[in-house]
């Protein structure tokens, strides 16, 4: 996927997160992009590794710096917290250059934003880690996933980890059914 198309999609996600009440800091955009790519199957092509605060992509971080340098997104400091990311007018003009792409992925973008909504960084870390584990070990049982999550993130309590794994499973099950119906509709047309 081309860099400018990625910029349009990540920018649209940032706008959608704000609409859903998210703080939309870099961590929120990182986790939102991870869900978009890994759970909603939007082929952005970023590499994610398990890092501090869950899955993290350095190539996405590089892209965000590059999008800022190109005036497509900006940082809006909000004392005393970290800054929010926001799409600029120039970024929205770029997004409008790719109407078919945005239309194609809009439903996934909105669904991810609704799911993550106003959750804080700690909860995003748990959800992101749960998705990372479910995706990496699809054959594992819930018990095995829970054990691995506690090993990777010892500061996360067992109940918190179990809730995150369950929430992610619900998201994935819903996504697979909507994706199936969408693909079916596409093939009929």
């Amino acid at each position, binding site marked *: 996927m*081309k860099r400018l198309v990625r910029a349009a999609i990540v920018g649209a996600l940032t706008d959608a997160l704000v609409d859903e009440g998210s703080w939309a800091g870099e961590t929120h955009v990182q986790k939102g992009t991870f869900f978009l790519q890994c759970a909603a199957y939007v082929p952005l092509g970023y590499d994610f590794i398990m890092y501090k605060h869950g899955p993290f992509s*350095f190539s996405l971080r590089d892209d965000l710096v590059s999008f800022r*340098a190109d005036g497509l997104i900006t940082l809006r*400091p909000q004392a005393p917290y970290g800054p929010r990311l926001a799409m600029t007018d120039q970024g929205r003009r770029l997004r409008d250059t790719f109407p078919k792409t945005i239309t194609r992925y809009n439903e996934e973008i909105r669904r991810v934003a609704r799911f993550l909504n106003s959750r804080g*960084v*700690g909860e995003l870390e748990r959800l992101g880690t749960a998705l990372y584990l479910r995706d990496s070990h699809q054959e594992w049982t819930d018990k095995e996933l829970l054990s691995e999550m506690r090993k990777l993130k010892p500061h996360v309590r067992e109940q918190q980890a179990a809730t995150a794994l369950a929430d992610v499973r619900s998201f994935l099950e819903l996504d697979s059914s909507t994706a199936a119906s969408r693909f079916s509709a596409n093939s009929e047309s």
Partner: protein
Amino acid sequence: MAIKHHHELRDPVHSFVTMTTYERAVVNSRPVQRLRHISQLALSSLVYPGATHRRFEHSLGVMHLAGEAFDVLTRRENVRDEVRDLIPQLNADEQLPYWRSVVRMAALCHDLGHLPFSHAAEHETLPDGYSHEKLTELVLLSPEMRDVFSDMVPSLSPELVAKLAIGAKKSHENFDVWEAILSEIITGDAFGVDRIDYLLRDSLHAGVAYGRFDHSRLIQTLRLLSPVQGPRDEDDNSEPTIGIEIGGLGSAEALLLARYFMFGQVYFHHVRVAYDLHLIDFLKSWLPNGMYATDVSTHLETTDNEVWVGIREAARNSSHPAHDPARRILERDHYKLLYARSPSHREIWSEPGRAVFGWAVDEYGPDAVRHQRPRKSGGSVDFPVVEMGGSISSSLAVSDVLSNLPPNASDLVFIRPDLRADADSKLKKDGKLREIFDAAAAREKLEEDVDVVNDMPTLDSNDMEGGGA
């Protein structure tokens, strides 16, 4: 006479760099000594004649600073209770000297994989999947270095040294919070000691004042802190990262400003970038199949010296396929700057340099034009800051300087010297640039259909921004 177990080297930046006898054995190893023959700033000395320093002294400086930063971050009185609860290694005092040794050796060895002339041609002359970080890993895991590390007391794991030396960005391995912090000491975006040393050292040797800042004060105020990104959950216990006490904020601002100016004035200097492009042209023609070998043995035998011999031979021989770029480097006859992006052009089209490059190639042919869009770097960096009362804030909430610092953005098009006047006059015609940018935007829109159909689940490597300092 008593046997000496600590040794000193004089250093122009840090006065003295000290090391143990075991560490000195690593310094004396063949892969580390090779760095005496790898220039830190490639062909920058053609612009800044003093910039002839080598990766070797930089590596010693990074080792020195890594030890200092580790000591400050792990000192008992500097660690907050909530951080201590999350990182058990901070409670095992007897293990800290071991971790300190690992971090210092990772810092010393972090550049072992550099090719001749460091970054200048790495992107274009290594096969897919290889980078200097990958080569660093291969060297560290070679039998030669395994022997060196196993002779240390306590012996060190080459795998761990490699993981920390490469850092999370390039290793593709998962990092636990302790490993992430140790690696961040070396490669961190805000206060990595690699960056601290290269800014200080490069500015000293280049003879520019931009890179100087009070690094001693900065390091003394480093702390492990939970980051602040939006309101906290009630039970949020975020994993810590490296931040600072408020007393170090001025030094942190100075570091990030230094980076901004050094990139603009030294690393992305247009003449230096032009010579990077000629070096790439030379290497693509001179190396077997246009690529460096990636086996450890050949890598360790290849330095700037061998390449300089090749450049001189090709420059003397007009029938040599690499004659033109070699002659340009030796005779200082580089391609001239045709176009540099301005903020107003960026507002019309997001990739103006690429658009001008495409136009110039159509007009003058691909051999006469070069485009370089180095990786964007810097800008505002968000890190936690402990304020006077002990509360933690985002750096961007407490510093107007940091919140308004733009990323470095360079987008340059070069042309053969004899064509510049003609190309320049065409570009300066009323409305020409606008016409070029509008055409590029229209082309992008047309290509959307193809992209939507052909979405690939990986980043297009040709579309990633390469180069950089």
